[in-house]
């Protein structure tokens, strides 16, 4: 990252949601969400299925336009480019593994030679250099998610959103993703991740946002959350945890 992009990354934070709401037709999916995420934080978004976690991520990332309230980046409403998102099901373009990673850089206007170099570095980071020339769509789910992660990492985002990135992956692939996330966070990337895996939230997150029935019931430091959540919804949720 050069100094101007670094300055831009500084100016992006805090990321704030003000009375954020989203309705699909008659159905109110998210309502009255106030949230403040600081630079360099690692936030896990927890909550039951259908609580509105994914919609919250998409609103913050800018894939959805809120029906009420607003999202602000460092006090402004313009959507910064330095962000990336990983989806539960990785979307692989009909290209090679390297081609998939280069594509993201290409869209952001990075010159071909530099894009290639950065893409290769990103693949090295997720341990997939040996698959660079393979068509991405024939890889396993775990490998595809790592390609998606490399594609995101190559963009050097100031903030990375993840929507249940390891939900359908085996433990080995999950560990590989978690290791890269921890590394990215240590290097200063702000991370927001939806997960159903409480152990994962414990291992990685600094703070927890708990969502239930379209509302954020609490935003608590992780250690405190797992010791004693503030909201009854969250404590009920934690008690349901399987061994």
């Amino acid at each position: 990252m050069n100094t101007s992009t670094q300055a831009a990354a500084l100016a992006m934070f805090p990321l704030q949601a003000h009375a954020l709401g989203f309705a699909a037709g008659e159905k109110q999916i998210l309502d009255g969400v106030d949230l403040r995420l600081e630079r360099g934080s690692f936030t896990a978004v927890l909550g039951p299925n259908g609580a509105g976690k994914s919609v919250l991520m998409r609103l913050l990332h800018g894939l959805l336009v809120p029906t009420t309230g607003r999202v602000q980046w460092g006090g402004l409403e313009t959507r910064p480019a330095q962000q990336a998102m990983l989806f539960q099901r990785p979307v692989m373009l009909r290209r090679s593994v390297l081609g998939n990673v280069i594509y993201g850089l290409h869209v952001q206007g990075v010159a071909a030679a530099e894009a290639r170099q950065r893409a290769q570095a990103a693949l090295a980071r997720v341990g997939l250099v040996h698959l660079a020339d393979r068509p991405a769509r024939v890889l396993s789910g775990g490998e595809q998610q790592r390609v998606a992660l490399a594609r995101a990492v190559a963009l050097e985002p100031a903030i990375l959103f993840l929507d249940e990135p390891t939900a359908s992956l085996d433990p080995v692939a999950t560990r590989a993703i978690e290791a890269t996330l921890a590394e990215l966070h240590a290097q200063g990337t702000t991370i927001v991740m939806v997960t159903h895996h409480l152990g994962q939230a414990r291992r990685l997150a600094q703070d927890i946002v708990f969502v239930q029935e379209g509302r954020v019931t609490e935003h608590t430091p992780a250690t405190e959350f797992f010791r004693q959540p503030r909201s009854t919804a969250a404590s009920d949720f934690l008690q349901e945890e399987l061994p």
Partner: protein
Amino acid sequence: MNTFSDSFSTALSLLLNADAHLYGIVGLSLRVSCIAVLLAAVFALPLGAMLAVSKFPGSRTLTVLINGFMGLPAVVVGLAVYLLLSRAGPLGQLGLLFTPTAMSIAQAVLVFPLIAAITRQIVEDAWLEYTEQLQSLGTSNWQAALTLLWDTRWSLSTVMLAGFGRAIAEVGAVMIVGGNIEGVTRVMTTAIALETSKGDLPLALGLGIVLVVIVLVLNAIAHFIRSWAARGGWK
């Protein structure tokens, strides 16, 4: 059945002896239809892709129209292009009527809706899968359309082959705008129609065999591309 077997053996000898007259007609057919498909594709591919990725005023109507026009009767297309290109028509000054160019234009008009409609369908299917990821990366509509055209290139190449198959096999449009002039605008289908009515069955049958073989080979290539692309994860 004597006529058939006699004609058949004469047709085969024409084919095997590389009869110049016969292969001249085949060559013109291939040329006219190739140009027609390329001409149609230049407009149909971007239109199909744009209809798939962006909803603009009238896009739905346009989609319905294009789908409906997939089954346009060739003679009607021929008539319309004839009116455009005839001396008194709006493009009459170009003097294109009764030339191979006119035939290519007519076939291009004929296969344009076919290529545009199937392109829209293929691109839209891929777009449904890609939407969130491309929006997340910050891709504009134009970039998305180009990305999808590139990513579905193997499926689209089979669409082009289908368009070519329709173009080279049609007779009504090229008959009207080409005029079936020997050595100038006589293609396989118009020659078959003429030679049959004249009673020169061997030549008609020889051309018929070539035409069928071309269509079969096209379909075989399309099938091969589809299965190869699916196996390699390119589809």
